[in-house]
């Protein structure tokens, strides 16, 4: 975790401005089997190393971001708008 987090919209901002949700996993299709849903809601890779997480710039632009971070060095590798990551502009 960096003390400063690069926001694609606001630039480098203090960590206190953000809310962290956790693993940036793809939500299963509504009709996916219970096992897929169980994995999505409860199981985590939780790796040592690169990890993609949802961060919300709560006290800033209020956009949800996908932040790729190293869980050992806390280096932030990439930070992109979650909607943009899905190829959507919303």
């Amino acid at each position, binding site marked *: *975790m*960096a*003390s*400063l*987090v690069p926001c694609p919209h606001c630039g*480098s901002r*203090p*960590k206190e401005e953000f*809310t962290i*949700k956790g693993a*940036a996993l793809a*939500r*299963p299709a*509504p*009709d*996916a089997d*219970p096992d897929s*849903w*169980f994995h*999505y*809601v409860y199981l985590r890779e939780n790796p040592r190393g690169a990890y993609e997480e*949802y961060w*919300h710039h*709560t006290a800033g632009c*209020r*956009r*949800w971001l*996908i932040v790729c971070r190293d869980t*050992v*060095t*806390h*280096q*932030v590798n990439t930070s992109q*708008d*979650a*909607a943009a990551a*899905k190829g*959507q*502009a*919303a």
Partner: protein
Amino acid sequence: MTSYRLPQGGLIDRGHPLSFTFDGKALQGVQGDSLASALLANGRRLVGRSFKYHRPRGILTSGAAEPNALMTIGSSGRTEPNTRATMQELYAGLEARSQNRWPSLAFDIGALNSLASPFLGAGFYYKTFMWPAPFWEKVYEPFIRKAAGLGRATHEADPDSYDKCWAHCDLLVVGSGPAGLAAALTAGRAGARVIVADEHAMAGGSLLSETAIIGGTPASAFAEACATELRSLPNVTLLTRTTVFGWYDGNVFGAVERVQRHIATLSPSRPVERLWRIVAKGTILATGAEERPLVFGGNDIPGVMMAGAMRTYLNRYAVAPGRTTAIFTANDSGYQLAADLEARGVRVSAIVDPRAAGGATYAGKARVLRDAVVTDAHGGRSLAAIDIRSGSRTDRLKVDALAMSGGFSPVVHLACHRGGRPVWSDEKAGFLPPANFGGLTPAGAARGIDGLAACLDDGARRGANLVATFGFTATPVAFGTVEGDVPVSAPAKTLWSIPGGKGKAFVDYQNDVHRKDLDLAVKEGYGHVELAKRYTTGGMATDQGKLSNVNAIGLLAEARGLSPGAVGTTTFRPFYTPVSFGALAGAHHGEHFQPVRRSPLHGWAARHGAVFVETGLWYRSAWFPRTGEKDWRESVAREVVNVRRNAGLCDVSMLGKIEICGPDAAEFLNRVYCNAFLKLPIGKARYGLMLREDGMIYDDGTTSRLEENRFLMTTTTAYAAGAMNHLEFCAQALWPDLDVRLASVTDQWAQMAIAGPKSRKILQAIIDEDIGDAAFPYLAAHEVSLFGGALHGRLFRISFSGELAYELAIPAAYGDSVAEALMATGRTEGLMPYGVEALSVLRIEKGHVTHNEINGTVVPADLGFGKMVSLAKPDFIGKAMLQREGLAAPDRPRLVGVVPLDPADTFRTGAHILAKNAAATLENDQGYVTSSAHSPHVGSTIGLALVKRGDERHGEEVVVWNGLNGEFTSARLCPPVFFDPSNEKLHA
């Protein structure tokens, strides 16, 4: 007591005497003194007692590493225990007290511990105090707790203020010694934004104690000139009295500036300390090196001092260390000290050097003993003599001061805060900062560079190189020839301890860890450097092992037959030196601990006498007492009855309000709520239940369709911010394909509930449109015009109380006036304000749930909302997980009402439910009371509860069990709606 102040020299102002006290005795120092130098000038040798053995201790260093000279300064709320006398600047009226001694510093009963020291070795306490078993907590531990600790902190509040700030720069220079100044000047002249931080009062570091001449200028004057130039550069900030205590992710450094810790009369308009968070593109670590003690018997007797510290007291503070001095040095720095002492007229009897050759350039009068060591120091509260062993011969020499230097350890602390490990160098006989550890560049002595000229040069070149990477063209500043520069060179052989001594040879002074403790740790299996630290407590004192750790590692290495590099260091962690709570907290304490939120109707409520209650960050009106009411219960009951009989007005502005717009807004709502929303008609409100993805209820509220593609959602007060985050997550991260926009409008609207049979009549007086039942039925939601079109608001026919009720939303700035207008028009109808307490009673009577019931572990069916869940919808948050077996289990707790069998009986929220006649065990626990209140309508206490299979147990007699308060109430389970179950009032 004789003065040890020299008649001339030093960076002090003899014309500016300062009075201070030590243990109540009045003493005098001068401007420019540290507390330590002033004590030494007054001949105060004994200044403290050690932690375990209460050994008499003197001043050992002149800086942040000081383990012995810890004092309590100040009084009342300004009491500061464990202050390093070496770092505390003297000011007029300073009160210092010694610590950890009773009854006095000179005669300390605790020193008897020394007699028992054979039984008090490393970790002795793990092996004893176990018999008889109850004695640990009753006898041994209370005694140990009293004996332990250092200074005594006050229990009084701190009257002073603290501050925080952020700063951004190209280059942060930590330390303003030769390397730091050179780097800062180089970068500053190149135009880079530079922050220089130094923990001392004056910039200059070792230059302030130095006798060398730099480019024709004496070192201390040179330092002053550099500082003056740095201050003159607009792009440079020079922060003295500022300790950089930690290096954090993203190249953020924490630093604390002691703004007014050195001042007799504080300015109330300035903080006493300021926390800096410094964001630097690059950092020069110019923290210098720490001189290592030598580990020989009695190396802690007052009068034994680090050689560099002695030189500082001599040159900077003009204090003689004693009348007759000896120097025990494993490197050439001791010879420099000898020359300086002799130049100031202090006699040096002997220089003891364990090396065969050394001090080649020394030309003074002292006897130089090579291949020799000091094995023991003698004396009680002050040094009297030392034993010098040379070959097979040991001689005793009478001296009253002994300087020692075992080598130099680069100060690598900050460089290792982010996971880097220091690297052992045989050549430098020390641990060097980790190489290439992102963004931090060591320079000068901090990376093992030796000699003043070399450090100046290294700082300048490294500073230039670093700012060049940020696009500055920098030329390393050259400072001219350095005269009197004596590189001290690494010792020819590293001495971790001196064999043959008889006295205790201390490694960690403050915690009384001596050589044998480390031997014992290795013998007992605690030889890993981290285990040895934890077992012996070496390195865990307030100095965090600044002086002791490298020696301890050397000794462990010897005992284990490894190199110091293989033993490794313990983990360096913030803080470099301890930081006050005050500085870390800044202004966020007391009533400013958290921000305050006040509703737009706060003033209205206050004018009507509201008693406010903290609700998260909000202050909500709890009840509105009237004269003659004896307690809050009476006020609340009157408000409740009045709502049921006439009408009440309650401020509900704190509810979260979110506008949801766009062509896909209905679809969006249909996915975030578990119940259906697609077909909500325009102009209608609907209750909605929002689940988490795990199927549990997250929040509830009403959502109204204002236009085809425009909705207004309300959330609970507590979850307003969380719900907004959640909706944004759904819109942006889950379904960015939905065309929907969200805006929080909580603060834009003042919202008031007007509830009671007369509410329509009261509202109609100010609302232009017809709000009769036909035109404005239950769950209607429209924009309305007020006062003949003077103002527009939104009206919702929704009810939390079960009465005919409305919520009226008014643009925030007009809320207060509208509320007062309603009070005026409603007076004849009996309109009264009511607070959240009455609101709570009303909703419990009606069986409406809040987050008391929505406790994060309930699914809709648990609260009787099972049928609302629209499993026919293709998707909504929580749908998949809701269908797990455990969430449909028959014995889940379900919402039920509770009433006492005897209406005179009462019970409380949080009491548990047991079956009648069941034993009071956790196995028999049936559930608990989630909400309770005295109901004027029912005439007794009523409650809502979550009880296993509660919905099937209406009529059952139970016990409401509150062992915590000794209350056990016979009660009956019942339907959770106590008022108007057929909703006639609601639709009136």
